[in-house]
C-alpha cells in the first residue's frame, strides 16, 4: 500500500509546508506548538511507513519518483531511498519530534519562527537523503544551512553571531567544491543523475581531484579533524534544539556523503588515499578524545565527544580497502560499513539525548560550566538516572546502541591492521574517562551550592522525551538486527561497486 503513495515527496513537503503554515500563523498564536507537534508526528508516522514498505532484499533504489524539473539542463526531481538513506530519514523525522517537544516551554521568543525553522529543516534534510539528482541534492544540501543559520543566530547564546557565521561559511566553503565536483562529473557523464555518476569511468587523476573535493565538502560536515573547529562553537551557542539537530542529523549528512558520492564514484582514489582518511579518523578518535577530557563546558565536552564518535564512522568506511587488501574474500568489510552506519544512527540518538540532558540543566541553572554543578543527583534523582544511562551509552557500554557500532568497527579494524584496532579501541578508555568524569563532577557528590539545592526534577514532558530515547538506545543495543537487516543488501552492493576499478 505504501508503494502507491509518493511517500518521499510527502515526507519532504509535509514538514516544509507545515512549517510555512506555522510561520504564517504568527508568533502569538497558541496553536503554534501543537500544530508543529502534529506535523512532526505525522512526518514520523509517514517515515515509519517507509520502513514497513521497504524491501530488504534489494539494493535497488526504492520508493522512486521522477519528474522533470529544469529541462534545459536535464535536471530532474528524482527521489529514491536505499538501505543507507532510509534509516537516516527515520532518524531525521524522529529527531524533529524530539526537538519540538524540547522547545515546548523553553522557547518563549518568536515561537512560531522557531518551530517553523525546524520543520522546514526536517523537510530539507529528508530531501538531502532521498535526492538522486546531483543538483537536487546540492540545492537541499545548501538550503538547509539557512534555517540552521537563523536558529543559532536568533535563539543562541551570547557569542551566537560569531558561531553561526563561522558555521555557515565553513560549510559553504566545503560545499562549493562539491558543486565543482558535481559539475565536472556532469561534464564527463552528460547526466546529473547520481546513479549515472556511479557508473562513469574516470582516470586516476580525475578521481583524486574529485575525491579531494568530496573530502573537503564532507569532512567539514562530519566534521573530521582538523576542520572540526566550527562544531564546538556552533554547539555551545546553539539552543538545545539546534544542538540536537546538528549532532543527530547534519553530521550524518557528511557520513552519508561519503557513502553516496566518494566511495562509489571514486573507488580507486578512495583506495589510494585511504591512509589519509584513516589517519584523520584515528586522530579524531584519540586526540579529540583527550581534548574532550579537559573541557570545562558541558556542551563543548559533548561536541568533542561527537567528533570522536564520528571518527569511527569515517574509519569504518575506509578500512574496507585495507580489509580487501588483506584477504581476497574481504570478510569483515561488510562489518566495517555496517558498523559505521550503526554508529551514525546510534550517535544520532545518544548525542541528541546528551544535548537534551545538558539543555535540561541549562534551563534551570543558565550555565554550562561543569564547575557550577555538583551533587545534582540529590535534587534531581530521575534526571540523574537518565543522564547516567546516556553517559554510559556514550562511553560504549555493552547493551546500549553505543556499543554496537563501535564494536563492529573495532572488530573489522582487526581484519585491516592490529594497530588501527588498537588505537580505535582507546576510545573505550578515553570515552569512559571523559564521560564518567563529567558525570562524577556534575551529578555525584554533595550538593555543591545553593543553586543546585534549589533544582527541581524533570517534569513529565522532559521525562517523556528522555524515556523514549532511552528505550531506543537500549533496544538497538540489545537487538540491532532491525537496523542492520535493512542495509545488508545495500552494503553488499556498495562493496561490489568499490571493489571494481573504474580506471
Amino acid at each position: 500500500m505504501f508503494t502507491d503513495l509518493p511517500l518521499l515527496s510527502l515526507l519532504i513537503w509535509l514538514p516544509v509546508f507545515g512549517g510555512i503554515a506555522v510561520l504564517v500563523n504568527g508568533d502569538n498564536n497558541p496553536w503554534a506548538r501543537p500544530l508543529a507537534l502534529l506535523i512532526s508526528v505525522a512526518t514520523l508516522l509517514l517515515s515509519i511507513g517507509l520502513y514497513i514498505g521497504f524491501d530488504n532484499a534489494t539494493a535497488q533504489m526504492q520508493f522512486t519518483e521522477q519528474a522533470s524539473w529544469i529541462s534545459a539542463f536535464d535536471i530532474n526531481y528524482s527521489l529514491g531511498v536505499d538501505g543507507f538513506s532510509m534509516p537516516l530519514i527515520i532518524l531525521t523525522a524522529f529527531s524533529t519530534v524530539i526537538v519540538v517537544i524540547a522547545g515546548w516551554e523553553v522557547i518563549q521568543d518568536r515561537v512560531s519562527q522557531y518551530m517553523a525553522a525546524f520543520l522546514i529543516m526536517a523537510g530539507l534534510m529528508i530531501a538531502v537523503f532521498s535526492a538522486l539528482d546531483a543538483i537536487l541534492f546540492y540545492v537541499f544540501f545548501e538550503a538547509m544551512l539557512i534555517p540552521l543559520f537563523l536558529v543559532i543566530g536568533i535563539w543562541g547564546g551570547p557569542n551566537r553571531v560569531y558561531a553561526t557565521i563561522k558555521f555557515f561559511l565553513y560549510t559553504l566553503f566545503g560545499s562549493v567544491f562539491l558543486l565543482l565536483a558535481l559539475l565536472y562529473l556532469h561534464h564527463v557523464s552528460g547526466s546529473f543523475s547520481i546513479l549515472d555518476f556511479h557508473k562513469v569511468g574516470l582516470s586516476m587523476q580525475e578521481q583524486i581531484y574529485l575525491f579531494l573535493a568530496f573530502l573537503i565538502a564532507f569532512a567539514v560536515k562530519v566534521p573530521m579533524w582538523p576542520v572540526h573547529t566550527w562544531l564546538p562553537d556552533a554547539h555551545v551557542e546553539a539552543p538545545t534544539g539546534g544542538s540536537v539537530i546538528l549532532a543527530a542529523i547534519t553530521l550524518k549528512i557528511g557520513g552519508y556523503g561519503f557513502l553516496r558520492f566518494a566511495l562509489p564514484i571514486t573507488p580507486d582514489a578512495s583506495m589510494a588515499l585511504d591512509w589519509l582518511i584513516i589517519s584523520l579518523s584515528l586522530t579524531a578518535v584519540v586526540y579529540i578524545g583527550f581534548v574532550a577530557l579537559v573541557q570545562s563546558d558541558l556542551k563543548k565536552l559533548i561536541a568533542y565527544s561527537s567528533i570522536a564518535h564520528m571518527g569511527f564512522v569515517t574509519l569504518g568506511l575506509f578500512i574496507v580497502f585495507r580489509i580487501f587488501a588483506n584477504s581476497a574474500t574481504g570478510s569483515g568489510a561488510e562489518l566495517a560499513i555496517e558498523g559505521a552506519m550503526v554508529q551514525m544512527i546510534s550517535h544520532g540518538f545518544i548525542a541528541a539525548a546528551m544535548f537534551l540532558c545538558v539543555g535540561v540543566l541549562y534551563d534551570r541553572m543558565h550555565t554550562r560550566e561543569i564547575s557550577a554543578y555538583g551533587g545534582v543527583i540529590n535534587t534531581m534523582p530521575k534526571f540523574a538516572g537518565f543522564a547516567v544511562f546516556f553517559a554510559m551509552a556514550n562511553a560504549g557500554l555493552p547493551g546500549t546502541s553505543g556499543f554496537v557500532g563501535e564494536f563492529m568497527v573495532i572488530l573489522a579494524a582487526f581484519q585491516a591492521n592490529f594497530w588501527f584496532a588498537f588505537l580505535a579501541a582507546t576510545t573505550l578508555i578515553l570515552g569512559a574517562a571523559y564521560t564518567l568524569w563529567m558525570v562524577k563532577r556534575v551529578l555525584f557528590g554533595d550538593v555543591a551550592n545553593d543553586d543546585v539545592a534549589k533544582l527541581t526534577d524533570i517534569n513529565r514532558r522532559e521525562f517523556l522525551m528522555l524515556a523514549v530515547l532511552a528505550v531506543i538506545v537500549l533496544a538497538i543495543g540489545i537487538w540491532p538486527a532491525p537496523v542492520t537487516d535493512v542495509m545488508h543488501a545495500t552494503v553488499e552492493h556498495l562493496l561490489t561497486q568499490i571493489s571494481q576499478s573504474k580506471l
Partner: protein
Amino acid sequence: MTFEVSNMVLALPEMFMLAMACVILLAVAFLGKQGANAAYGLSQLTLAITAILIYQSLGETGLTFDGTYVKDAFSDVLKMAICLINIAVLLYSTTYLKARDLFKGEYYVLAIFSTLGMMIMVSAAHFLTIYLGLELMSLCMYAMVAMHRDSFIATEAAMKYFILGALASGMLLYGMSIIYGVTGNLSIATVAEVVQAGGLDNTVLSFGIVFLVIGIGFKMGAVPFHMWLPDVYQGAPTAVTLFIAAAPKVAAFAMAIRLLVEGLGDAQLYWQDMLIMLSVLSMIIGNVVAIAQTNIKRMLAYSTISHIGFILLGLISGSPEGYAASMFYALVYSLMSMGGFGMIILLSRQGFEADNIDDYKGLSKRNPWYALMMLILMFSMAGIPPLIGFYAKLTVIKSIVDVNLISIAIVAVLMSVIGAFYYLRIIKVMYFDTPEQHQALEAPIDMRLMISANALAVLMLGIFPGSLLALCASVFPL
C-alpha cells in the same frame, strides 16, 4: 539607395518610444506642476506598451535601416526585459522622489530616453549604432545623477561619472576605428565575415580589441575600470542608483555580445584572456572590498562589481551555453539589485536615508515581512539555493567547467564564499541585533506590493528556474 517603408516596422517599438518620449517632454514643459504626475503615468504606459509591441512581434527577424539595425530573438528578449525592469525601477524611484522634493518630470524624460538608448544598443548591427545607443543611454544617466543639484556628493559623482564615461566612450570609439582600419567595415556581420576569412594583421586586430574590451569593461564596471562605480552608486540619489544598477547592465551585456561574440567571435583567442583578467579581478576586488563597507549602497556597488565578474565568466567560456548563462545571470542580477535598492528606498523616508548597514538593525522585529524579503534577496545574491541567484552562479560556473577552465571555476566558487560573508552580515544585522529605531515603515501600497513581488519572484524563480533558463538557452542556438 531605396528607402523601404516596410522595413521600419521592425523598429516599431523604438519608434513608438521615441514618439512618446517627445510627448512626455512636451507634457512636462506645458503642464507645469502637474507635469511630473503626467510624466510618470505616461512613462509607465510607454514602457508597458513597448513591451507589448515587442511581445506581439516575437519571431519576426530581420535587418533594417541599411543593415545597421537588427531584430532577432536575442534583442526581443532583452528589450522586453529592459522595459519590464524599468517599469519596476520607475515605480520604486517615484516613491523616493516624491518623499524628497525631487519629483520632477525631467527624471522620467531622461529615463525614457535612456531606455531608448539601451534598446538601440541591444538591437545594434553596426558599430555606429552601438555607439549611438550607448551615448544616448549614458548622457541621460549623467544628467540623472546630477539631478539633485544642491547635493555636493551627487554633483561630484556626476562629474566623475561624466569624465570617466566620456573617456571610456572615447576608448571604445578608438577601438572601433582600429577594427575598421583592419577589416574595412563597420557592420558587425561583415566584420565577422572578414575576421573569419582570416589573413588580417593580427597585431592591429588585437590592439583594436583591447580598446573595445576597455570600453565594455568600463560600461559594465569590471575591475580595473570600476573606479567610478562605488562613488556614483553612493553619491547618486538612491532612485537614480537603482536605475543605473539594473537595466544598463543588461544593455552593456548585449553590447559585449554584439561586439565580441557576433563581431569578433573568431578572434576569441584575443579577447578571452583579457576577459579572464577582468572577470577574476572583478570577482576578487568586488567581493573582498565589499566586506569593508559600512554604507549599504557602496557595499552593493562592490557586490555589483563581483557580479559583473561572474557575468563575464559565461562570455569567457565562448560557448552558446556560456552566453546563455551570462544572459541569465545579467537578467537575474538586475532582478536582485532592483530588489536590493528597492529595500533601501522602502526603509528610507523624508530626511532619512537608510543607507548605513546599521540602519537595518533589528528589522525582523520592526517588520518581519520585509526583513524576510531582504533575507531572500541577500541569500540570493550570495548564491544560496533555492534562490535564483544560485542558478545564475551554477550556470556560469558550469559553462566554465565544460570548457575545462577548472582553475577559474575554483576562483569563482572561493570568491562566492567570501561574498557570502557580507550578505550574511546584512542578515545578521536584521535578525540578530536589537532595533535602534522603532518607526513604522511608511511607503505607499504599490511600493510595498512591488517589493514583495520582486523578492517572491526571486524565490519562485529559484524553485522553478526552468522556464527562464530555457528562454535564455533558446536565444543562443547551438
